[in-house]
């Protein structure tokens, strides 16, 4: 029995020598960190509008199979927009970095947004709330809507060797190469808010953000129901779309989303016209001019308007409607700015989508944290879809930005 200690020591030595062979093993410190990290409860966080900050989508729609060539299909066919709407659900990540699984606390995370805007300020704030819970070394960079600068910021971020880059790609297609670059540099990447091309998600851990198409399909249904209610027995119901600035997925999601939805949901609704106000897309005066001209052209046939922005655009729309003395037109828009919610409250805007800016940033940060904590990684997670109407608009005050 005197040999026993030696045997024990020998076993211990062997075990220690072999330990690397069995999976990853964490130092005590890392263990502790992981424990502490898992203990962090971010569900208590609220955004400025009093909503639960972290509100991932509950919806579990089945992801349809990708048609051979979506572009061959008609624009009114939902599947025509497959690569924009369902991007990322069925990609096979390549060369994905493995999660350290040593806990999210104290990580270094760099967030690169698309540009300066009050929305962005709020979005960064949301991410910051989560980052602070995990005591991250966190900083946000903004290229001020300039793609060339965004590339430069990405280079600089890579150079700082962070544990994760959170990126809002300025452009869905340019995102592919940006993702490749970050991935090649071996830096974990998570993209959010703007849905990139499917290919980009090959090089990203995943994507979180608003389900623009989904939201507008919901909005479309609510809108359609209201239109039918207000125009009983009408043969066709003419509607118009004020589009987003060209060159981004919202430009399509917020017009063709509803169009392709209504094509099946309520074929009676007929698209009269769609246009993006030029030269200034989000100038109320320009929008007013556009809509005034539409009212001249289509008169009473124009029953509904769907706007891609619930502030300047919507205000312009209602200015035009008031001048024409039209109160029968059902207007819906993408939200949720203060002006938009005010319009809903005044019973002018019928409905807007709930687009939490803080939640957007926060969900991205939280997803990253989960990955640090070694949890499984969802390729894609949407923000909760919700349509705000007069019924519940009060709940969303004060606005986030």
């Amino acid at each position, binding site marked *: 029995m005197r040999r026993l200690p030696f045997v024990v020591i020998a076993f211990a030595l062997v075990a220690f020598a072999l330990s690397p062979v069995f999976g990853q093993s964490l130092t005590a410190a890392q263990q502790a960190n992981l424990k502490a990290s898992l203990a962090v409860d971010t569900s208590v966080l609220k955004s400025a509008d009093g909503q639960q900050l972290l509100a991932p989508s509950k919806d579990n729609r089945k992801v349809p199979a990708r048609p051979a060539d979506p572009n061959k299909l008609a624009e009114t066919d939902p599947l025509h927009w497959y690569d924009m709407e369902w991007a990322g659900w069925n990609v096979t990540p390549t060369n994905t970095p493995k999660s350290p699984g040593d806990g999210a606390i104290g990580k270094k995370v760099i967030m690169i947004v698309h540009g300066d805007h009050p929305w962005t300020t709020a979005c960064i704030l949301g991410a910051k709330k989560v980052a602070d819970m995990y005591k991250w070394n966190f900083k946000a960079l903004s290229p001020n809507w300039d793609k060339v600068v965004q590339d430069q910021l990405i280079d600089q971020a890579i150079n700082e060797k962070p544990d994760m880059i959170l990126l809002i790609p300025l452009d869905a*297609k340019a995102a592919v190469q940006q993702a490749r670059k970050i991935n090649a540099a071996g830096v974990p990447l998570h993209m959010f808010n703007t849905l990139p091309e499917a290919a980009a998600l090959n090089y990203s851990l995943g994507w979180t953000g608003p389900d623009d198409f989904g939201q507008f399909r919901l909005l479309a249904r609510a809108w359609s129901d209201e239109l039918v209610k207000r125009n009983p027995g009408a043969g066709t119901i003419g509607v118009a779309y004020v589009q987003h600035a060209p060159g981004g997925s919202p430009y399509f999601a917020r017009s063709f989303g509803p169009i392709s939805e209504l094509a099946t949901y309520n074929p009676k609704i007929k698209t009269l016209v769609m246009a993006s106000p030029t030269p200034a897309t989000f100038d109320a005066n320009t929008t007013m001019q556009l809509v005034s001209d539409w009212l001249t052209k289509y008169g009473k046939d124009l029953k509904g308007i769907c706007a891609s922005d619930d502030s300047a655009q919507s205000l312009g729309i209602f200015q035009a409607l008031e001048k024409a003395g039209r109160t029968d037109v059902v207007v819906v828009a993408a939200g949720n700015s203060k002006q938009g919610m005010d319009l809903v409250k005044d019973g002018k805007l019928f409905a807007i989508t709930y687009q939490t800016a803080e939640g957007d940033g926060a969900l991205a940060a939280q997803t990253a944290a989960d990955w640090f904590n070694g949890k499984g990684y969802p390729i894609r997670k949407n923000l909760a879809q919700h349509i705000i109407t007069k019924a519940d608009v009060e709940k969303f005050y004060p606005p986030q930005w």
Partner: protein
Amino acid sequence: MRSRGSLLSLGDRYRIYVLFVAVFAFMSLLSPKFFTVYNFTTILNAITMNATVAIGFTVVMICGQLDLSIGTVITFAGVLTMGLQPYLGFAGSIAVAVLGGAIVGLVNGLLVTKTRINSFIVTLGTMTILQGSIYQFSGGNSISVTTDQVFAISDFLGKNLLPLITPRVLITIILVVAVEFILRRTRAGRDFYIVGGNRSTAWLAGINTDRTITAAFVLSGVTAAIGGVVSVLVSTAATLKLGENSLMYVISATIIGGTAMSGGKGGVLRSVAAIMTLEMLYTGIILFGLGNEVKIFFAGLILAYVVLYEAYAVYRHEKTLGQRPWLMKELAARQAAGAGKKR
């Protein structure tokens, strides 16, 4: 023999380079992350587009003209490159894109020289037309090509041949050096200055002023196009706002570089030095963790300072223009005497 050459006037003539060194030194001292090969590779890569665009734009300004269409030409060329690639292959689509830039320049040049409408107005018009064409052509969505070939090209353009030098940087350097050389060392090059300095002098000297100005606009179109082409090849996608910020940026840089809007003065190298200076400043600001508002603010201040400085120099010059040296001596003597008389 009377000649210029006081240290001060020299410092004034090469102001931009002085500024360049100053900013460089300042940033290097204050931010450790700044003075690194990696950081400068990043900066160089970042400025290639605007630097390339600035080449032609500067020549136009040397001719005393203005080209507001460059921003849209960048995007236009980019969209053509990616949009036509499936049909023409890159060789073809790039050729078309650059040619497109040249044609826009040609149209600008002809309108300016033949109808004698101020170039500010002409190019404002072509700018609007191009903006529409871009959206029309692209259907409102950015265009990308996602073949392995394009990724290969992109990676190559971004790969370091030497420290600091990537192919895309090299392209810009070659263009800058070539044009700067033409401007300084060839008759055609000097003609731009003479035309910009005084159109009728040039005309009387038998220089074809209209052709010279048109050539400048064509060059501007071409370099803007090249800038756009390279940029989209690097990012493998042609975005519709690519050139949006370039116009004001390049104008400011060119002025800060010391190219006079009145024409006859300046150089490509100066403009690029100015871009480099601004970019170093911007990077520094970001490294300090400050936002774009600070960038914009300082860009404005520098521009304002330069414009005011130039204007004030002329103002002073005119005030003392034609003073008689002997009288100034006499005055000094008298005042000395006056001082002596004081009791």
